[in-house]
């Protein structure tokens, strides 16, 4: 069979800009100085993310629409989780006296109310973390198409968590009505506590969502963290319990409130939410300060990890 094995013929009019390259001219590896070095600047990145806040709102809006679109209960699902939790804890532990602290005017705070206040403060964290952890993995299609800062995906989940938290005030109001309990004037401090909670949530969400891209095992771990965390945080028990902790092997009781506030800034925050709303005490500035500091450290660490890992997001999801 006659085949023509001549070299690639160049068209007659090869002159106008046609360049043919030879593979053997290309080295096996790029020269060292050409390698891309990912050196994210946290402040600059944060500014960039802030400029894309519209995108975050839009993503959150999309997710909220999608979540509730074909659901029969609609928005009711959002409050179902804390309400069910409340039912269980009230039925099982409602008779316990641990929560029967008196408000400043001497009135006893109903157990259900004290517990729900804790669950309410916990909702922002748990909802954001559950959604945020898989934010990058579930959005891989959109991630392949758009190039806005990747943290928008994760942070939009916090907006969704905030939305759920707002919805969860409805059962709170109902409980207040049922128990004829008037919230204290110090309730006005509550937004501040949530504000301090936000950096912590941002840090945790950025951490978990970027780690999830590297290791999908985290998907299994998130519900465990969420359950364990709720029990480890003074959601259904008073923070004052931390004042008298008995550590096996060490004699006596220890006040771990300060130490614990550093590790888990949610602890003093939830305690403050309950205290200001139901008891009528103002902010515990000492613990709030610690919580705020710790919260910001969590955020910076989470953001730093996120930015370091973001190079691989598109290739790994």
């Amino acid at each position, binding site marked *: 069979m006659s085949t023509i094995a001549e070299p690639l013929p160049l068209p007659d009019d090869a002159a106008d800009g046609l360049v043919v390259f030879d593979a053997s001219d290309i080295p096996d590896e790029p020269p060292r100085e050409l390698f891309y070095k990912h050196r994210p600047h946290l402040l600059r990145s944060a500014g960039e993310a802030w400029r894309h806040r519209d995108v975050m709102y839009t993503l959150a809006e999309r997710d909220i629409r999608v979540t509730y679109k074909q659901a029969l209960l609609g928005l009711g699902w959002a409050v179902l989780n804390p309400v069910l939790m409340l039912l269980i804890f009230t039925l099982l532990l409602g008779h316990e006296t641990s929560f029967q602290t008196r408000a400043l005017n001497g009135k006893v705070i109903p157990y259900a109310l004290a517990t729900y206040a804790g669950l309410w403060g916990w909702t922002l964290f748990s909802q954001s973390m559950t959604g945020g952890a898989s934010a990058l993995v579930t959005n891989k299609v959109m991630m*392949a198409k758009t190039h806005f800062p990747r943290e928008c995906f994760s942070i939009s989940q916090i907006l969704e968590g905030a939305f759920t938290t707002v919805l969860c005030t409805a059962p709170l109001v109902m409980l207040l009505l049922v128990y004829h309990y008037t919230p204290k004037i110090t309730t006005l401090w509550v937004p501040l506590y949530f504000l301090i909670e936000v950096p912590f949530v941002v840090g945790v969400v950025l951490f978990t969502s970027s780690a999830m891209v590297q290791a999908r095992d985290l998907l299994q771990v998130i519900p465990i963290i969420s359950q364990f965390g709720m029990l480890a945080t003074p959601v259904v028990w008073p923070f004052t319990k931390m004042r008298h902790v008995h550590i096996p092997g060490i004699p006596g009781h220890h006040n771990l409130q300060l130490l614990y506030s550093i590790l888990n800034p949610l602890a003093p925050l939830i305690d403050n939410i309950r205290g200001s709303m139901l008891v009528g005490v103002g902010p515990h500035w000492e613990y709030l300060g610690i919580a705020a500091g710790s919260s910001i450290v969590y955020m910076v660490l989470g953001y730093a990890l996120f930015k370091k890992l973001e190079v691989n997001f*598109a290739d790994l999801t």
Partner: protein
Amino acid sequence: MPTSPKGTVSVEHVWKRFRADRSIPLFQEHIARLGRRIMGRGGSRGYRWVLRDVNVHVEPGKTYGIIGINGSGKSTLLKMICRTTYPTAGTVTTVGRIGALLDVRAGIHPDLSGEENIYLYGTILGLTRQQVNERFADIVEFAEIGDAVDRQIKFYSAGMAIRLGFAIAAYLEPDVLLVDEVLAVGDARFQQKCLERITEVVQKGATLFYVSHDLPTVEAVCEKAMWLSGGYVRAAGPARQIVNLYRTSVEQQSMLGPAGDGGIRVLKAEVSGPDGGGVRSGEAVHLRIMVRSPEAMFGVFHIGISQGTAQPVFVQRFATSFPDGEFELRCRLQALPLPKGRYSLWGAMRAPVGSGHIAEFPWQPMLSFDAFGPDVIKAPNGVMVLSPVYVPAEWELN
């Protein structure tokens, strides 16, 4: 380079590698590798370079095609221009808003309605609600989805979803439009519509990157092109020449490849012009094909002339009783209807199914030749010519 005008795309010495094994290593594999490293047996993982030293610079308002076989790195390069993935080495600069059609349904969210999708993408591309409103009617009209715009995408037909996806990307006024092999899915009329829209967007000053295996559309849409092969730029320049080079290479590869041996062999094939010399447009062509068959059969010999691919411009057939052993086939084409260019002659021979003869000559290229004559006439901008045919014509203006 913030000084470059919007729509500029600059790719400088870009390299990209992927782990040879794309799966995420398990924890125990990490441990095992660490162990190997400690034992001093080299723990480097296997990498595969998918792009090697790629350079492109495209000014706003220009069109650029990228062609190459599957796995040559075309899509990876587009992803990097889209800034969704980082180069391993080198720099990629894309100035302005990017509209990407990288995947048929990419980014169209199935649970949202058409309308919600349009606004979602508008915001993500950096448009205000007002700006999206202005373009909303155009998008719906172009996508031909009508009332379905209120319906969730998952209830759309595949065609509707693709049309909407294209309309969103093409009407939200990107500075850089990236199109990867999506037009091939629509029907012919929609394809033409998309090509017209692309031309319009480009005329307004957008830059187009177009990746396709469909060479006629690349020729129709792009001014310049590059041919990627094994991750490096094999050639770059005017689109038409790149496409021709690529065609020639595909043809040569299929000739050098193992032609499925069905028993019948073509020993020699010749193409010549009317006087035994070169082949010219509009003139007679003589073909001589020497065949050796292990069995005598009543069968059909097909020939076809193509631009290198397996799809011929035209086909001829000859059915007769072929003897066994060697024989020579001669064919005279009355007038060659092809413009100037490089073509290949394909052939196949087999007996009808059920005749009991198993010997065959599968469809494969036999040789390639150059035809001399007038250049192919270029279609208006954005219109593709499927295969070049030379038709003598006379014009009159009354």
